């Protein structure tokens, strides 16, 4: 590659420009606003929001709430009224289900908790609350360590529908996709269970004979 004339002297540039180095110096400038840690950037990396344009993510980011939780803090409780859909910005969240233990005598001990799943960064939960009227939480969510969540709540969705219908539609599409996928896997599981049940019934009948 050649050089270019600067005033009267010729400046020789290296054969290949090291883009990485230039990029490093450009981005390390204190005046360069880093966009890596902003909410739209975070939302961009979430699979269910892949159909959103950058501007739509920017609008969506104005309607969400950032909430921080300490270790062991309850995010929502089973049986409570739920209005929020949460994404995990950082930290871990445990989803647990309360089961009443009929054997235990004291009321404080009668509740038993069983872990359903442990969620991490970029996972989401509580999406049903966004679609259901008077949704009741079917499980309890607890922060396992210090974590930051991004919440989208029903009133925000209503406002989004009122002001930015296109973004609202895309959000609803994303949430519907999550639910459709879940429904699909549940249907599959039901099929397998039904098959197993019929097998067991057959076995039972054979034994009786």
């Amino acid at each position: 590659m050649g050089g270019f004339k600067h005033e009267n002297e010729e400046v020789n540039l290296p054969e290949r420009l090291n883009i990485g180095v230039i990029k490093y110096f450009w981005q390390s400038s204190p005046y360069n606003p880093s966009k890596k840690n902003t909410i739209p950037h975070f939302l961009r990396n979430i699979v269910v929001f892949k159909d959103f344009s950058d501007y739509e993510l920017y609008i969506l980011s104005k309607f969400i709430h950032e909430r921080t939780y300490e270790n062991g803090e309850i995010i929502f409780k089973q049986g409570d009224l739920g209005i929020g859909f949460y994404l995990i910005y950082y930290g871990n969240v445990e989803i647990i289900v309360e089961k009443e233990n009929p054997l235990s005598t004291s009321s404080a001990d009668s509740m038993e908790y069983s872990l359903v799943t442990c969620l991490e960064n970029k996972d989401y939960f509580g999406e049903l609350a966004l679609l259901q009227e008077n949704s009741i939480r079917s499980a309890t969510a607890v922060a396992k360590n210090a974590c930051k969540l991004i919440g989208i709540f029903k009133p925000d969705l209503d406002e989004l529908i009122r002001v930015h219908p296109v973004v609202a539609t895309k959000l609803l599409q994303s949430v519907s996709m999550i639910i459709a996928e879940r429904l699909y896997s549940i249907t599959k599981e039901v099929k397998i269970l039904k098959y197993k049940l019929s097998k067991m019934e057959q076995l039972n009948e054979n034994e009786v004979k």
Partner: protein
Amino acid sequence: MKMKLNSNKGKKIFFFFLLIVISIIFIWSLPRLSIPLMIAYVLYLIVEPTIPQLLKLGVERNLAVIIIFLSLAIISIIPVVALVPTVKMEVENVGIYLPKVETYIKTKYEEIQLVVLQKAGVELNNEYFKNAIIYISDNLQKIIINIPKLLASLLEWLLVIPFLLFFFLRDGFSFKRIILKLVPNEIFERTYYLSNELNKKIGDYIFAKFIEASIVGTIIFVGLLLMGVRFAFLLGIVAAFTNIIPYLGPFLGLLPAIILGLVEHGIQSPEFSGILILYLAANVIDLGFVFPILVSKMVNLHPIIVVISVIVGSHYLGVAGMIISIPLAAAFKLVVAQIYFEIFGRG
């Protein structure tokens, strides 16, 4: 698997409620602040539904608020400029007119007294009547004496309310977000849900009532104007304002019109029956067409609850209490239902 859930967040919740209680007491104890705040909030609720319409057209929020604000200013200035002479004349006339009403009532009373004496042989006591007249004229004097004071605070409001309204419209969205940031995690979802429902209920109610009142007021004003009855504009405004009070309002609005009709035209005149028919027609239109269309927006309360809350409201806060009792009752119902579900679970 067993685990103990960490729910020792009492301090945060206590702090949050303390903050709310202190700010409510602070604002309540300063009527000079709370009244303009409340009026600005009501205006905000009436105007706010227009903002999304402009935002959908691609107008920026700031510009949308400025457009709404300017059009509101123009809309409210034109009638004020055009109607100030009329209203001034009508108010002055009312001042001249009141003694006429007084003498009319006196002569009527004497007539009735005579009739009762002839028919039943009982002389009616004059004391009650005299006391009533003294009471009314005393109160009127008090109002007239207080007018300069009222005008001074009105001037203050004229500056403060638009200022507050502008920032409510511009920053209401972010204000809400900042306040929500303070809500402790434990009660966040419930608080957000409840505050949103309350706001929606009160907003819908005020918006619906505003439209209903302006329709009724316009019908009365135009009707009276066409019939050539005096004080058409004042009576229209009175009808619009009293219409806000449920059930009792239409009768309260009718009262000054009946007195005027009796004094001015007499009970057998066509104007008197015309006034009655007009008020009847306005209320039939209101109940038959306006109310059913807006009723979905109204709060869902049983008529008995409505009447009880209006009586309670009038007992503590007078006419203002009658007007705000309904949304307050609806809000109360919502909060109580929420607490009930919290304690007894959702069946």
